[in-house]
Each structure stands twice: as structure tokens, then as C-alpha cells.
């Protein structure tokens, strides 16, 4: 399998604070890799280093076999970045925006016009090409944001939370666009706060926390390895005391008023230990193994709770 992006020992310090430790990651050509992590996990810093926006403190970035540090022009030409923000000129038309962004990649004249038409077609905005961007809906602006990262036909496209604030129709359109891009051979890195998006789109998922990748694999692998089945409990009384009692009989994570418990030898000893402390169990629910439970097990936090 050919590597489209290789990050080796990649890290970034801001003064005394380490945003990303020393990260190793290989993204294979043609795959969609999901990058998940709570706020402050280091996702955006990693993406920024991988795309040449931020200079790494240590480590190496290789895009399509070209080292970013030694030949930034060639490496960057292979990459398209769709930032989290709407990185567009709102006062200009879609065509004017994309023509300018194409020029940054040395694409001018007739070829630029063809690429602009192609990119607008991919995101379904061909009929609004001449309209001023500020007249677009939020979802259309998000789609144009993707087109601006696509207009030079990159081999690797990095999408940083591309569906923030969009309506379901536009979200579906963006999903379809990402799938079509993968079918056409473009490698995609996709970050999102929406677990179901990552589950629906990505071939593999890297979970980041505290500036490091804490797990990497297919969704099936991650669920099998980290999302062990268990129960969710709601108790009335001191939750910390209940958690301490339950820890003797399994792995316990706490989220708000809920204890998630993966028992080592059945649920009965857990319930007995909690009730022995004098507390009442208000709710008990069996938990399915999902990517979300794997994420919780790895980070101890829910993705959207910290967004």
C-alpha cells in the first residue's frame, strides 16, 4: 500500500506547553482516515503541521513521497486544505474565489476555468457560480469551502470539521462528495465532532488525546479492542463513593451523573458493592459496543461534551 501522508515523530511546543508530543501516523493512498479527539487533543495542530501552516518543533512530514521541509512547493501542491473556518471572500462570487485559489497553485486561464467548473460541479454549486458568496446559505458556503480546497485536484484532502453548522441536506451532500472523492482516488483526512459521521465515512480512525494518538485502526478493530460491553448506572447519592465501590469489580468511567462500568466478573457484584454503600440505583442500562464507547474508554470524555 502506498503511503500518501507520513508523519514521523511530529510534535509542536508553544513555549512550555506541548500541543503535540511526537506523533507517528501513516495515511494510505485512497483511504478516508477519521481524526477524532476532544478539544485540546492536538487535532488542529497536527493538521496544521501536516499542511505546512504551522512549522513543527520536531519530526517530519512527507506528502506523497515528498518531504514538506525539503521541497514545500512540491509537497504542498499534492495537498488541499479545507479549514474549519469559512476561508472564503464573501464579497466575491464562487467563480472569483476559486479562480484566485487556483492561481495559488499556478493554475490560470482556460485550465483554471475548467477546474473551477469541475470543483463547483463536485459540490453541486455549478448553478450558483456567479453569485456572491455572502448570498449563499451556511451549507452552500461549507460546500464552496470544500471546492476551494479541491480546485487544484489534490491527491490528499484534509477536511477539518467540514459539517459544522450545516443543515442535514447539505451534510448529506458533503458526505456524498467525500465518498465520490475517495472513489476518484483522492485520500481524505476527516476530522469531526460527530461520531456518526466518522463511523459512516471513514475506513480507519485515529483517536487523539493529550497531544498523542491513543488508538488507531478500523472502526471494527477499535470497537473490539476498546469498547467492551458494560452497563450504564445512575445512582442517587454520592457518585464518587459509588464509583470507588464499583472499581473493585470492573473498569469505571464517569460522565456527568452516569457511571459506565465494564465488569470483570458479571454485573451482580458491582450492584451489590454500590448498594452496600447505602446508595440507590436509579437506572441501569445495558451498553452497546460502539465507536463512541471506545472513544469514552480511551479518553474518559464524551466527544460532544467537550466540544
Amino acid at each position, binding site marked *: 500500500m502506498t503511503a500518501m501522508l507520513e508523519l514521523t515523530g511530529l510534535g509542536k511546543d508553544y513555549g512550555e506547553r506541548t500541543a503535540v508530543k511526537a506523533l507517528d501516523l501513516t495515511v494510505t493512498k485512497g483511504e478516508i482516515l477519521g481524526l477524532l479527539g476532544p478539544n485540546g487533543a492536538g487535532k488542529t495542530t497536527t493538521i*496544521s503541521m501536516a*499542511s*505546512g*501552516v*504551522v*512549522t513543527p518543533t520536531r519530526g517530519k512530514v512527507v506528502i506523497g513521497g515528498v518531504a514538506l521541509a525539503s521541497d*514545500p*512547493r*512540491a*509537497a*504542498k*501542491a499534492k*495537498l488541499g*486544505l479545507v*479549514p*474549519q*473556518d*469559512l*476561508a*472564503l*471572500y464573501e*464579497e*466575491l462570487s464562487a467563480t*472569483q474565489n476559486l*479562480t*484566485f*485559489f487556483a*492561481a*495559488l*497553485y*499556478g493554475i*490560470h486561464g482556460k485550465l483554471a476555468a475548467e477546474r473551477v467548473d469541475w470543483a463547483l460541479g463536485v459540490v453541486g454549486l455549478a448553478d450558483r457560480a456567479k453569485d*456572491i458568496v455572502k448570498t449563499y446559505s451556511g451549507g452552500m458556503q461549507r460546500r464552496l469551502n470544500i471546492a*476551494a*480546497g479541491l480546485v487544484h485536484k489534490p491527491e490528499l484532502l484534509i477536511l477539518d470539521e467540514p459539517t459544522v453548522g450545516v443543515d442535514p441536506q447539505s451534510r448529506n451532500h458533503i458526505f456524498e462528495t467525500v465518498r465520490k472523492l475517495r472513489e476518484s482516488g483522492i485520500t481524505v483526512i476527516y476530522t469531526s465532532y460527530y461520531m456518526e459521521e466518522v463511523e459512516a465515512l471513514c475506513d480507519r480512525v485515529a483517536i487523539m488525546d493529550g497531544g498523542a494518538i491513543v488508538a488507531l485502526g478500523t472502526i471494527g478493530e477499535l470497537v473490539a479492542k476498546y469498547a467492551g460491553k458494560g452497563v450504564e448506572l445512575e445512582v442517587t447519592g454520592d457518585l464518587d463513593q459509588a464509583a470507588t465501590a464499583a472499581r473493585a469489580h470492573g473498569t469505571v468511567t464517569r460522565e456527568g451523573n452516569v457511571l459506565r462500568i465494564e465488569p470483570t466478573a458479571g454485573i451482580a457484584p458491582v450492584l451489590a458493592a454500590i448498594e452496600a454503600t447505602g446508595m440507590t440505583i436509579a437506572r441501569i442500562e445495558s451498553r452497546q459496543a460502539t465507536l463512541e464507547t471506545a472513544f469514552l474508554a480511551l479518553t474518559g470524555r464524551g466527544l460532544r461534551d467537550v466540544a
Partner: protein
Amino acid sequence: MIGASILKEIWLLLRDRGRLISLFALPVAFMVVFGSMFKFGPDKGKPRPIGVWHEVNDARGVAVETQLNATPGFVAKAYPTPDALRNAVAHEDLAAGLIIPTDFDPAHGKLIELSIDEASPIQVRGPIEGAVIGTVMRALSPVAPRDMPQLVMPKTPPGLDKPIDDISAFQVTVPGNAVLFAFFIAMAVAITFAHERHTGVWKRLLAAPVPRWQALVGKLVPYFLIAMVQLGFLFGLGAGVFGMKVAGSVLALVLLSAALAACATCFGLLVSSFGGTERQIGSTVPVVILVMGLLSGCMFPRLLMPAFMKQIGNAVPQSWALDGYYAVLVRAGTGVADVAPQLIALTAFSLGFALLGLWRFKFE
């Protein structure tokens, strides 16, 4: 990439009415208002009226009135009573007036009354007062005043080229406002950087296969060119519509404009290196530019400022630009060599702003 940046900035400028107004319409409005306020030059066909009251057939009063009418820039306006004249001055219908008493006798302290608002600034009052007193003295001189030979000859000192004969108000207001408003390009530069950082477009630029220096130059060059277009428009309008003359070399005028445009653009880079949001820039930078404009004499002649204010004025680039422009516009024969000090000063300011801006500028 730079060509695409220029085109993009022009598209953006054409869609931004506020910026178009501040760069092109506002300076024209200022030129017209200031040019019309200082009614001299092309407007000098309307002399300033000076009120006069004297007894009918008072020979000395008639002599003063006649002399006022013979003085360029003044016309005598007779009033029926002294109080009517004083009332006109008090209500600002007149700048000044002369009341010649029947018992006029300077030897015994019976003087002509010059009715004028003594509260008005000396810069405004002084020239009128001096000229009117001089006119009275000539009218009442015992030495056949109208036949008196010329005693004083105005002459430009060596080192300065002779000015053109007809210096209109627009010779002053066009360069003054051109220099003042050219610096507003600095605000546009700083705002565009802030906007691109805010929206994430700057990230896109950094992720593109464009060297960082080129991304920076690509942002600055369009604004340098817009400033040149702005200056060309204002001086073109001044010459074509308002009768402004270029007494010296047109090449010197163009070089001064290029140096000024570069200086304003580099100042924009410096401002943007301090960061800040678009709103913060929009509320603070105009104040800085207006203060610099005031110190440099863009709105009020430096000639009339106290010495220490003139010294402070030398520390802002607008002063140098204005001095250069004024020499080229009013002094016949002023060439590139004559404005070399101004060109060097503006280049030094540009370099200073650019180096300080680059030192502070945060790409990431």
C-alpha cells in the same frame, strides 16, 4: 500569484463602497471644502469686504475708502452708522471694519477704530489686521501716498525656486488631502490581514505552494498599486477640474507619489503586525492617521505652527511628502534632485516600517 492577488483585491475594492468612499470620494470632498474656504487663487475675483464709516465728505474717510478699494483683496463697504458696522462685525457678516471719527486726531489720542473680533486666533486675525492698518497708513500718509515709489520688494531667498504667480487654494488642498488620505491605505492593508486571519483564508495561503514572502508581497503590492491609482486620481482631478498647476517636474511628482504609496503600504504592514481585530483596527488606526496628518500640516499649515510642533512634525512621513509635493506644485523648475531629501526620507520611513513590521509579523 501576485497578479491573481492584484485582480482579487481590485474585485474586493470594487465591492467595498466604504473603502472606495474613504480612499477616493472623501479626499475630493475635503479638497472642495477646504479649497472653497480659502477664497484666494481662482476665486480671488471676489475681494474681502472691509466695513467703513465716516462722516459724509470727511476727506480722510474718503481717502481710506479709496485706498481700500485700490488694495488687492479688499473692497470698502460703507455703513450708515458706527453701530451698524460694529453689529455686522459682531455677527460675523464682516471680518473687520474701520470707523473714522469726526474728531480724528492721533496726536491727541483720537484714533480710527478697527472693529475686529480680538478673540479670533492671531493666525486668522493677524493678516487682515496688518493689511488693513497698512492700507490706512498709506491712505493718510502725509507723503503723497499714491505717488510714493515702491519701498518693499518680495523676493524668494536663494536655495528656493521661484513660485508660480497664481498660487490657488487647490495648490495646497490637493496635496494636503492626497497625503492625508493616501495613508488610509494602511488601514485597508491592516484590515485585510486581520480579515484573512479571522476567516482562515490566511491558512489557505500558507498551505498553498507559495513561499511565505510571496504571500506577504502578494498582499502588499495590490495596495501599493491602489494607493498609486488613488494619488493619480486625486492629482489628476486637481489639475483637470480644480486648476491645480504642476510648476516643477512631473517625474518628481510621480516619484514622490510612489515613495508615499510605498510608505503608507509599509505602515499598514507595521499596523497589521500588532494584530487586533478588524473592529479594533477600524477604530484606532484612523485616529493615528489623522493625528499624523495634523502634525504634518495636511490640514493646517506648518508655517503657522509653533517651533516645537514643527519639530514633532518632522517625525512623521506625511510632512516630508507634503513638503516635496508643495515644492513640485508651486516652485517652477523643481526637479527630482530638488526633492531628493524628501524621497530619501520617505524611503527611510518605508524601510523602517517594513523592517519593524516584518520583525513583529506572525505568519502562524
